[in-house]
């Protein structure tokens, strides 16, 4: 579905992302994790067309989209959410979602109907005619998801869609994300909430200091010494190993 090859982004002298190669299989939920400042958001921005890579390629459904603008990629079926959720203020929840729905449904009636459908799917139906600015953080996260779903994407890029939620809100979101995947939409998600990654993802990629350091199933990743070191610092894996041996 999606492949990046040797994707690299320099900001001045800083290599935010350095030769990142990853592939996302259709029908999966793929996780992208890494310590803060690893370059996850930059990688996302390059996949969705918000940043142009310094070098490397992005291939979506077999076609090279590396230099294509963000809105064209959205039309191809790449949807993304933003880490900082900002609903279109002054519009209701329904109108917010409709902005996304208009992409495939130019008529207002159809777009509003589609918006209602998506609101049902993500559990925003009760608030559908409330101003979006009245939503709680959890509500805003759902709205962010709903807007992206409304463009009827093939691939959904989720940027920390669970961040800032409390454990019970996270528990409520997990089945929603699974139902999205079961509906045939491939998901690539950046996430810090490990519990979610472990329970949702089929494959996890790990990015540290701009470099892809590991990939595998969640279980494999959790045991990978390189990953542990990336998160906890050099030598951490050995110390952990030693601690385990002593125990």
């Amino acid at each position: 579905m999606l492949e990046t090859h040797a994707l690299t982004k320099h900001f001045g002298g800083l290599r935010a992302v350095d030769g990142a190669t990853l592939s996302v299989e259709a029908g999966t939920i793929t996780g992208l994790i890494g310590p803060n400042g690893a370059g996850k958001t930059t990688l996302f921005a390059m996949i969705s067309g918000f940043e142009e890579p310094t070098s490397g390629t992005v291939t979506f459904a077999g076609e090279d989209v590396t230099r294509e603008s963000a809105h064209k990629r959205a039309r191809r079926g790449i949807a993304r959410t933003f880490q900082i959720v900002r609903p279109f203020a002054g519009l209701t929840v329904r109108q917010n979602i409709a902005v996304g729905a208009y992409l495939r449904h130019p008529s207002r009636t159809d777009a509003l109907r589609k918006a209602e459908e998506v609101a049902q799917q993500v559990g925003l139906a009760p608030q559908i005619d409330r101003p979006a600015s009245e939503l709680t953080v959890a509500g805003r996260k759902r709205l962010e998801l709903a807007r992206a779903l409304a463009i009827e994407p093939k691939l959904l890029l989720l940027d920390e869609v669970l961040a800032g939620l409390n454990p019970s809100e996270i528990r409520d979101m997990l089945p929603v994300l699974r139902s999205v995947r079961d509906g045939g939409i491939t998901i690539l998600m950046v996430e810090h909430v490990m519990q979610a990654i472990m329970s949702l993802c089929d494959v996890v990629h790990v990015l540290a200091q701009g470099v892809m350091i590991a990939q595998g199933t969640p279980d494999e990743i959790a045991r990978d010494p390189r990953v542990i070191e990336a998160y906890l610092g050099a030598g951490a894996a050995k110390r952990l190993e030693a601690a385990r041996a002593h125990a």
Partner: protein
Amino acid sequence: MRQERLSLVLSVGLLAGLAVVPLVTAANTVLNFLVFAMILALAAHGWNLLAGYAGQFSFGHAAFFGVGAYGGALLQMRAGINPWVAFLGGIMLAGIVGAVIGALSFRADLRGSYFSLVTLAFAEVLRILVNATPATGGAAGLLIPLDVRFANFQFASRAAFYWIALALVALVTLLMLVIENTRFGAYLTAIRENEDAARALGVDVFAEKIKAMTLSAAITGAAGGLYAQYFLYLDANIGFGPWISIEALVAPIIGGLGTAAGPLVGALALQMLGEMSKTVAGRIPGIDLVLFGLLLVLVIAFMRRGVVGQLQRLAMARGGA
């Protein structure tokens, strides 16, 4: 009451009331006042589409007012085109100039204050050029020959002209109400509120902004064309001067930014204030603009959504959902 409903009711009420004024009085001062208010309302509608709906604050709408005015006048005087057709030609020219300025500015990704500044500079460039070019009448200005015939877009009765201006305002108001309920309108609002989010949802932000700017410029150009046909005289400061950029901006802000009724409400309010200041203070230059500036600051500070927004709040407080 929702904003669109309120705008519809308010617009229909105001326009209907305004339409019968010539039946009640034929006083020149009243009709002059109203024709001018309609011209201003039209210019304000153009600005409001771009700023109120799409969030791009132009400080140079005089450019489009001037192109509409000069375009119409020059097409009939120099090319011998029928004034009605020339009027439409002026509108089209204004639209084209809007598209070009928009394409240049948005291609360079000028947002916020930078867009405001660059539009101001474009208007000033046009003002200086027109002022210095003999073909446009230079500093002496342009006098459209008086030849009062319907075919010439010149009328013996002020009422006739007024009704045409009023009809144009009604048409544009209707257009705005329609736009509010289309994909185009939704996209403009999305761009205003969060450009990146709009882009992620497949909105071609550049193209939508250009569309908005072209339409906006054409509407303000129509105001310029009307001005030329009514006063039959233009100079660079009338056509391209900062006064019209300012009034086209202050009116919708007072009336209600991003509402279909705002420009008309604001234009009437501004005109009244201008007349009052002249009655009280006499013909001191600039005194009306001092008041407009003050009003602008006060509205932003205390009544951000303008008159329409305030009425809406009142309506809501009364329980009318």
